[in-house]
C-alpha cells in the first residue's frame, strides 16, 4: 500500500541536487577487425547477408513504386512503401540475439526490423520447429503458395527465409496470401510465431502497445524481452511520453512483491534517422539534441539511456548484449537510441526538399552496406568473391519472391464479390475463452478467504432486489447496487483467468471512481491490479499490447471525457488489429468508461457515439445492476474489445427489474440484445444508459395524467444491436422516441432512428424521434435539467411531433422552426 511510502516533508523540502550521469553517445568505435575473435565467420557473413537482403528488398519496392518494374518483372503497387534503406545495420544489429520469444513492435518504416528479426529467429530454431510454424500458421496458406520453389531450397532455414520474404511482400501487395491476408499492408506486417508483432502506421503508436506486451511478459512470467521500435519523429508524441512514464513507474520496485519486484523487460528503441518525415528533429522540431536525453530523464536509473552508432551493426549488437543483461537484472526498461540515416525519402512521393544532396552524399560514405563489407575484406574475414556471391544470392532470392507475390494465381487478392463477408467475418472474433492460462492465479485472498473481504461482507448484507416485500424501494445502503455488480463480475474473473490484470487511475486503495473496486485491493496483488499514472493513452494502449501478447486486460478511464486523451488507442489501435491481422490476433480488452454528471463541461459527456462510430469495437451501456454484472461477465469472457460505459448517476441504483434479484453466481447477459423494461401500447421509448429512468418517469406521467401507455426498451448495447424487439414494439405502437444523454447532433441515437425508420416505416404513425442533450457545453449541475433529456422532454416531444395531447402545454420547443433555427446556428 502506498501508505507504506509516506511523503516526508523534511525530505521533500530539504535542499539537494538531482544528479544526472553522463549519457554515452557512440562510445563503441570498433570494426570487424577488432571483433574478429568474438564472432564466427558465419556470424559475420550472416550479418552482411541479412543487411544485403533488406537493402535489396527495399530497393526492389522503390523500383516497383517508381518504375512499376523490378529486374524485368512488371507490377504496379499503389499501396504505401516507407523504406528503411540506410538503416539496415540498426535492424540487423538489434535482431542478432533475438529469438522467437522476444517480441518486436514497429513503425511504418519497419520492413528491415521485421526481416532481420525473422532471419535471426529462424537461425535459432531447428527444422522441425520451423516446419511446424510454417505448416500451422493460417493453415499453411503461405507455405502452399511457395510450394513451387520448395524443392530448390537448400535447407529448411532457406525455405523459411523465402517463406518470410514472401509472406511480407505478398502482404505489402495486399494479397490474400500475405501474413495479414492482405488486410494490413506495408505498414502493418507481422508474424507473431517468430515474435514479430504488428507494425504501426501511427507514429509512436507502438510505444504503449509494446509496454503492454512487456507487462504481459512480466506478470505472466514469460521468457523474452519486448522491443518497441520507433523513429526519432515519435519523440514529440504524447502517447510515447505516457508509455515512458508508465514503463518507469516506481511501484515496480517499491510495491510489486516477490518475483514481480523489478523493472520491465522492455527496450524503447529509437531509430534516429534525424527526420520525422520532413521535419528535422535535431535542430528544428525537437530540442533534445539526442533522443537519449529524454530516456535519461525518466527515472534515477536513466533507463540506461545511450546513443550508439546505428550504422555499425557491431555497435548495435554490443549495445543489445549489454542492455539485455540489464533487463535480466530487472533493471529495465531501457532507452536505446540508434544513430542512423535513411537515404530515400519518407516515402517514394517525398522529393527530399528538406535536405541537400551534399548531406546525402556525405552519409553514403557511412552507408553500412559500403563500410561493413569493406571491413570484412580488410579484416580478412571475406573475399570480394564471397561478398559478390552473397549479392548474387540476394538478388535471386528477391526476384523469386517478387515472381511469386505478383502471380495472380499463386497470390490472389481477397475477392469481396465472391465472398462479400470475408472482411465482415474478421471484424470480431466472437469467441468465448474463460481463461488464457492454466497457471494458478496470483491472489492475496483465496476464494475461501474472500468471505472475509470487506466488500464481500458489505454486499452480503444487501438485498439483491431493490424493493422490499411491500414494494417499497430500499435505501441505497440496504440494496445491492450497480457498483456491486461490477465488483462481482471482476473479482470472479480474477480467480478464473490468471492473465487478467486491471488498472487505471486511482483504483487501488481508493477503489476507483465511485468505489466500484473497493475490496479488490485486499484480494488482488499489485502486479494484477494497480494504479497507473494519469496517462490515458498508455492505459488503453498497454491494455492492447497486453492482449495482443496473450493476456486479458481490464482498463478504466475514470471519465468518458478523458476518452480523447486515448483517442488513437481507442479509435486506431483497439478496433483494428483483429481484422488487420487477418483474424489471427485476438483483442480481449475491456475498457470501463465512467460517464459523469454534475461536474460540468469536461466531466459530463456521453461519448458513446464516438466509439460506436468506429468499426471493430463492441459498445455496451448497462443501466441496471443485473445488466452490468452480466454484460461485464460476457465482455470478460470474450475475445473482442468491449467498451463498457457506466453512468455515474447509476452507481447506487438497485435492481428494479429482475424480481429474483441479481444472482450471486456468475452469469452472462448477451451483448447486443435490448431489454424490455415496461410494456405499453401507445408509444415506444428506446433508451441508452441512464436515460432509461427518465423514460420510465415520463411513462408514469403519461399513463397517470393522459392515459397514454408507453413501452420502454433499454438498448443495453449499442454495437452490436439486434433490432427485433424494437421493431416488434414499433409495429404495435407506431410511435417511438429514441433517447440518450449524448448531445443529439451526430449521435448514435440518429443511427438507431434511421434503422428503425427503414425497418418499420409502414407501421409508423409519426417520424421516429430522437431525444438527446442540447448541442451545448454541459452546464453546471444546477442547470443540467435544461441540458440532459428529462421526463417532461419526452412528453413535450410526443405532444409536438408525434400526437398532440389535448390540453397539454409543452415547455420545451421541438417545433420545425426551432429545429431549423438551432441547426442554422449550429447549436
Amino acid at each position, binding site marked *: 500500500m502506498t501508505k507504506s511510502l509516506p511523503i516526508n516533508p523534511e525530505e521533500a523540502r530539504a535542499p539537494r541536487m538531482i544528479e544526472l550521469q553522463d549519457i554515452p553517445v557512440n562510445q563503441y568505435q570498433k570494426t570487424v577487425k577488432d571483433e574478429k575473435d568474438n564472432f564466427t565467420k558465419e556470424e559475420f557473413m550472416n550479418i552482411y547477408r541479412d543487411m544485403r537482403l533488406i537493402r535489396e528488398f527495399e530497393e526492389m519496392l522503390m523500383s516497383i513504386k517508381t518504375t512499376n518494374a523490378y529486374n524485368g518483372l512488371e507490377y504496379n503497387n499503389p499501396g504505401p512503401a516507407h523504406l528503411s534503406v540506410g538503416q539496415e545495420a540498426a535492424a540487423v544489429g538489434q535482431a542478432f540475439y533475438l529469438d522467437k520469444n522476444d517480441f518486436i513492435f514497429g513503425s511504418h518504416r519497419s520492413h528491415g526490423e521485421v526481416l532481420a528479426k525473422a532471419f535471426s529467429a529462424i537461425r535459432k530454431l531447428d527444422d522441425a520447429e520451423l516446419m511446424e510454424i510454417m505448416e500451422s500458421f493460417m493453415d499453411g496458406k503461405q507455405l502452399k503458395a511457395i510450394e513451387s520453389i520448395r524443392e530448390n531450397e537448400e535447407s529448411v532455414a532457406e525455405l523459411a527465409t523465402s517463406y518470410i520474404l514472401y509472406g511480407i511482400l505478398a502482404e505489402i501487395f495486399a494479397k490474400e496470401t500475405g501474413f495479414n491476408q492482405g488486410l494490413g499492408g506495408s505498414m502493418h506486417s507481422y508474424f507473431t510465431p517468430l515474435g514479430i508483432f504488428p507494425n504501426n502506421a501511427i507514429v509512436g503508436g507502438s510505444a504503449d502497445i509494446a509496454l503492454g506486451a512487456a507487462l504481459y511478459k512480466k506478470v505472466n512470467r514469460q521468457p523474452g524481452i519486448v522491443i518497441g521500435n520507433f523513429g526519432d519523429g515519435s519523440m514529440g508524441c504524447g502517447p510515447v511520453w505516457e508509455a515512458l512514464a508508465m514503463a518507469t513507474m516506481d511501484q515496480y520496485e517499491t510495491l510489486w512483491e516477490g518475483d514481480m519486484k523489478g523493472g520491465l523487460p522492455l527496450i524503447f528503441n529509437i531509430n534516429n534517422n534525424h527526420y520525422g518525415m520532413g521535419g528535422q528533429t535535431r535542430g528544428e522540431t525537437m530540442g533534445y539534441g539526442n533522443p537519449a536525453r529524454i530516456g535519461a530523464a525518466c527515472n534515477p536509473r536513466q533507463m540506461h539511456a545511450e546513443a550508439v552508432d546505428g550504422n555499425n551493426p557491431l555497435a548495435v549488437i554490443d549495445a543489445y548484449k549489454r542492455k539485455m543483461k540489464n533487463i535480466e537484472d530487472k533493471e529495465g526498461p531501457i532507452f536505446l537510441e540508434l544513430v542512423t540515416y535513411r537515404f530515400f525519402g519518407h516515402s517514394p512521393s517525398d522529393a527530399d526538399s528538406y535536405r541537400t544532396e551534399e548531406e546525402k552524399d556525405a552519409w553514403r560514405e557511412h552507408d553500412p552496406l559500403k563500410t561493413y563489407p569493406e571491413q570484412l575484406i580488410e579484416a580478412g574475414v571475406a573475399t570480394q568473391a564471397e561478398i559478390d556471391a552473397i549479392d548474387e544470392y540476394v538478388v535471386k532470392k528477391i526476384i523469386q519472391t517478387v515472381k511469386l507475390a505478383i502471380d495472380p494465381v499463386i497470390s490472389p487478392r481477397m475477392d469481396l464479390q465472391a465472398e462479400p463477408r470475408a472482411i465482415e467475418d474478421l471484424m470480431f472474433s466472437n469467441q468465448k475463452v474463460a481463461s488464457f492460462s492454466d497457471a494458478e492465479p496470483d491472489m492475496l485472498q483465496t476464494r475461501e478467504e474472500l468471505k472475509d473481504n470487506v466488500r464481500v461482507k458489505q454486499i452480503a448484507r444487501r438485498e439483491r432486489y431493490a424493493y422490499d416485500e411491500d414494494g417499497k424501494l430500499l435505501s441505497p445502503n440496504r440494496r445491492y447496487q450497480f457498483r456491486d455488480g461490477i465488483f462481482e463480475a471482476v473479482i470472479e474473473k480474477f480467480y478464473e483467468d490468471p492473465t487478467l490484470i486491471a488498472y487505471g487511475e486511482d483504483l487501488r486503495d481508493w477503489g476507483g471512481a465511485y468505489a466500484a473496486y473497493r475490496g479488490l485491493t485486499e484480494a488482488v496483488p499489485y502486479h494484477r491490479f494497480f494504479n497507473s499514472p494519469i496517462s490515458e493513452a498508455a492505459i488503453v494502449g498497454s491494455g492492447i499490447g497486453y492482449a495482443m501478447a496473450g493476456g486479458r486486460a481490464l482498463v478504466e478511464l475514470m471519465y468518458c471525457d478523458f476518452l480523447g486523451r486515448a483517442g488513437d488507442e481507442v479509435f486506431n489501435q483497439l478496433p483494428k488489429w483483429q481484422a488487420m491481422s487477418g483474424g489471427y490476433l485476438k483483442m480481449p480488452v475491456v475498457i470501463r468508461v465512467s460517464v459523469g454528471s454534475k461536474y460540468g463541461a469536461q466531466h459530463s459527456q456521453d461519448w458513446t457515439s464516438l466509439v460506436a462510430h468506429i468499426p471493430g469495437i463492441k459498445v455496451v451501456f448497462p443501466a441496471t445492476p443485473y445488466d452490468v454484472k452480466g454484460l461485464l461477465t460476457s465482455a470478460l469472457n470474450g475475445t473482442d474489445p468491449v467498451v463498457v460505459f457506466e453512468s455515474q448517476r447509476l452507481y447506487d441504483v438497485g435492481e428494479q427489474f429482475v424480481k429474483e434479484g441479481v444472482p450471486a453466481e456468475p452469469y452472462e447477459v448477451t451483448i447486443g440484445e435490448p431489454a424490455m423494461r415496461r410494456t405499453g401500447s401507445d408509444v415506444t421509448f428506446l433508451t441508452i444508459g441512464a436515460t432509461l429512468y427518465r423514460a420510465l418517469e415520463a411513462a408514469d406521467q403519461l399513463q397517470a395524467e393522459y392515459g397514454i401507455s408507453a413501452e420502454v426498451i433499454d438498448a443495453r448495447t449499442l454495437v452490436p444491436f439486434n433490432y427485433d424487439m424494437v421493431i416488434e414494439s414499433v409495429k404495435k405502437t407506431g410511435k417511438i422516441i429514441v433517447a440518450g444523454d449524448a448531445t443529439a447532433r451526430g449521435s448514435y441515437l440518429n443511427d438507431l432512428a434511421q434503422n428503425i425508420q427503414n425497418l418499420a416505416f409502414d407501421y409508423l404513425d*409519426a417520424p421516429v424521434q430522437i431525444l438527446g442533450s442540447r448541442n451545448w457545453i454541459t452546464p453546471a449541475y444546477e442547470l443540467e435539467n435544461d441540458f440532459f433529456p428529462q421526463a417532461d422532454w419526452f412528453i413535450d416531444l410526443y405532444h409536438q411531433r408525434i*400526437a398532440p395531447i389535448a390540453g397539454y402545454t409543452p415547455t420545451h420547443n421541438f417545433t420545425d422552426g426551432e429545429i431549423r433555427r438551432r441547426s442554422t446556428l449550429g447549436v
Partner: protein
Amino acid sequence: MAVAVIMPRQGQSVESCIIGEWHVAKGDKVSAGDKLFTYETDKATFDEEAPADGEIIAVFFEEGDDVPCLLNVLVIGEAGESWEEFIPEGATADGAGAGAAAATAEAASVPEAAAKAEAAPAATVVTAPSVAGEHPVSPRAKGLAAKHNVDLRLTAPTGPNGRIIERDVEAAIDAGLVATTAAGQDYAAGIAGSGIGGAVRVEDLSKLPELQNLEGAALVDQAVAGLDEVEYTDDKITNIRKVIARSMHASLSEMAQLTLNASFDASNILAWRNRLKALKEKGMDEKLGLAILQRVPTINDIILYAVSRTVKKYPDCNAHYLADENIFRHFNRVHLGVAVDTPRGLMVPVVRNADLKSISQISAEARDLAMQCMEGAINPDKISGSTITITNMGRSGIESFTPVINPPETCIVGVSSTYEKVRSGKDGGIELYPAMTISLTIDHRAIDGAPGAVFLQALVQTLENFDLFLMG
C-alpha cells in the same frame, strides 16, 4: 461579348408573342441551355433557352408583354458590359424590364395583351390554413384507412403539421365515415401517392372516384367542415384561354349559327373497321403490305376522310365568309381543322390538302398533329388556315351538341358517341342498330338551312355506305 436574345418567330404567320413567365431576372448568372422565359403565340407555349453562358445584363420586357417577333428581349453578357445598343426599336427601356415597349395593338395578334395590369398572385388562397390541400398521412394511418375503407378526404387531421395519424382514422371509423366494400375497392385501386416514397396526399385522394355509400350525406359536410379545406383558389387566366375565349365569343356574337343534327347507322363503318382489325390481328398487315392495316383508322379518321371528300361537292361549306372584306372565299383544296383537347386548352391543328390524301395518310397526320398539340410543340403554321373543322365528342358519351364555328369558316362538323337505337326491322319487328349523331353548325349568313341539310345528308349517306364510298 454581349449577345441579345430575340423574340423568335415561331412560324411565318406569327407576328408577335406574349411573354408568359420569366425564369431569370436582370443580374442572374445563366449557362447555355438554361430556360430564360416562356412565351406564347395565340396557339402554343414555348420556352426560350440561353444561347450562351453569362449574366443577364438587360431585360426589356415584362411578363404579359406582347413582343413583336425578332425584337431583342434581353441581353446576356458580362457584368458591367454595355447593353444600350440592344434596346429594341421604339423602346425606352431601362434594361430591367420596366418601361419596355410592348407591341402596338396594330402589330399584335392579341391586342389586349397590353392590358397586363392583372397583378393578382398566381394562386390566391382565400381561407388560409398553412397546409391547404397538403394534409400528409402517416404510413400507419394510410394502412389502417385502406384496411377499413376509410376515405382520408373526410378524416380530420390532428397530428403535428396537419398530419393525418392513426387516431384520426380510428375516429373516422368510429364516426362511420367508412365506404362500402365495393367503393372501398375503387378507392384502394385508385390510390396513387405523389408524395415522397409514394406517400398519399389529399390532392391524390381528390382524384379518386366518389364514394357513393357513406352512411349519411350530412356526415360528409360535417367531415369536410373539419378539414380546414380551402373553398377556392384564384388562378390567373392564361393567354391561350384568353385567345380561345375571344375567338369563341367572336364566333357566336358575329355569326348567325344554326345547328342541324342527323343520326346515321354506324354499322357499316364499325364493320369495316372491325374487319381491318381482324385482318391486322391475323398478321395480314405484313402479308398484304397495306398501310391501312399498319394503323387501323379511328372512327374520327373515317369522319375526317368522309368530310374531306364529301365537302368538295358543297363549295359553300369549304369556304371563308369574310364579310368585312365583302369576300366569300371558296377553296379549291380541303384543309381540315381537327379540334384537339389539350391540357393548355382547345387547339385546332390542320390537315392540309386532305382531299388529296388517303385515309391512312389522314389518320397518321391527324395523330401526329394531335400529339404535337398535346406536347405543346406544334408549329404555329400548322394550327392555322383550315377551311372546315371537325370536332369529336364521341369519347365523352355525348348524344348531340352544337359545335361552335371556327371563324371565318362557314361550318363545323361535330361527332357524338355511338348509341344503340331501335328501328323497324325487315320482318316487321324491331331491331337494334348502332346510331351516331352528326351535328353540323352552319353560318346562316353564308349558307341557308336547306343546302346545309343537303350537305349533312350527303355525309350521312357517305358514312352509311362507307365501304362502297371507298371503292368509288
